């Protein structure tokens, strides 16, 4: 019988690493964060610190920078959690979005790619955006579906999705990077997203 806590193995299928992805009492944790309980922040880090660090490290490829950005992520969550409704949203997707966006902001600042899109990220990651997220959005079944979906992508499709997520590149920036026509890149992106949506949509039908 599965415990009430959901675990998932990593893409590397290394059974040593089991990443806890959702907790049944995340809404209670969010409430404690809103009440400014210091222990709540400790619990938040213990639950999601490694996941956030791994994500950010994957993006910036620098341990020292990743450390700074994880700190910034958790501080930002601490500062903004009062705008987060624990009864209507899931904590982990919000936190991981903040983490990813901090890393992308860093990459853009290093590459002098700061633009209006930087400020769009600020709006997009607002806690209210996650108001209707299911509590167990990061569940094992969906992650496996996503992993399976990636195996169905062509190399080009996978590369453009990774450039969007892990580098924050727009389609025009991708086209310039890989020296392909913009129309070709758009086709790859749209077809990749269609495959991913179809696979994740299949979970709802189960």
């Amino acid at each position, binding site marked *: 019988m599965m415990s009430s806590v959901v675990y998932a193995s*990593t893409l590397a299928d290394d059974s040593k690493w089991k990443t806890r*992805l959702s907790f049944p009492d995340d809404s209670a944790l969010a409430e404690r964060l809103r009440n400014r309980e210091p222990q709540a*922040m400790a619990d938040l880090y213990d639950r999601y*610190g490694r996941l956030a660090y791994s994500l950010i490290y994957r993006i910036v490829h620098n341990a020292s920078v990743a450390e700074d950005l994880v700190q910034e992520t958790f501080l930002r969550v601490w*500062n903004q959690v009062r705008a987060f409704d624990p009864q209507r949203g899931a904590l982990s997707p919000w936190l991981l979005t903040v983490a990813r966006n901090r890393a992308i902001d860093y990459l853009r600042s290093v590459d002098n790619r700061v633009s209006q899109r930087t400020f769009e990220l600020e709006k997009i990651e607002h806690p209210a955006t996650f108001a209707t*997220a299911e509590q167990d959005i*990061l569940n094992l079944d969906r992650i496996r579906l996503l992993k399976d979906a990636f195996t169905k992508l062509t190399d080009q499709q996978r590369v453009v999705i990774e450039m969007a997520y892990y580098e*924050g590149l727009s389609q025009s920036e991708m086209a310039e990077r890989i020296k392909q026509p913009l129309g070709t890149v758009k086709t790859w992106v*749209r077809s990749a997203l269609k495959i991913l949506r179809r696979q994740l949509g299949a979970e709802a039908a189960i």
Partner: protein
Amino acid sequence: MSTCHELSEVYELYALGVLDGEEATALAEHIRTGCPTCSSGVQEALISAALLATMPEQVEPPTRLRKRILDNIGPEKSSAAWAWMSLWAAATAALLIGVIFLNTERSKNDRELAQLRFEVRRDALNLINAHMALEFLDAPETKTVTFGQGKPQPPHGRVLVNAKRGVMLIVANLPPAPAGKIYEMWLIPKGRPPQPAGLFQTDEQGTAMYVREGTLDLANTDAVAVSLEPQRGSLAPTTTPLFVAATSGL
């Protein structure tokens, strides 16, 4: 004009903050006008994108990181704290003269709020959602404090505070932050060091409107300030504030 069906192909790109060009403008406009299809579509895409965060190989963070984060939650010891408090105290004395009290000057504030609404629509500042800004301005419990009025040097503007909605900053005559730098807003609680309240940039005209959403403990907030910080922002101010708007007593 793009339809929701056409825009649905790029919800994920918008959610990742990588959509640009006409598609970005069209989708942002749909969301700004409250299109339920696009709003919910982007929300679903955003939440699904969080699944991608689980893909990278897991790496153990340094053990010191936990303590670093938790230490930042407590009261901060800043070598600049005294300078900040001194500057804030001086600014408070000067700004008390310019503080606007809505319950005694309502008609004047109504005209000023109407002017602010006109400026929002006219200038179409890109830093925040204009619809959200108008809701902030229209909220009956919003209170306003000005800063920099009558001073020969920039910047000047208004800080609007609303216990339920947060803080809105409207500033003019503030040159765009140089490369590698950004403006950071701070909330100064009573008897505590400044707390980070978000990053913003001004346009070429030196104007900006920034909203820091969320509930605000108005009774325990002494002031709102802005300083120039490194591009990624700071956890504590690293420079003296460019301006301070006292909010205590509102």
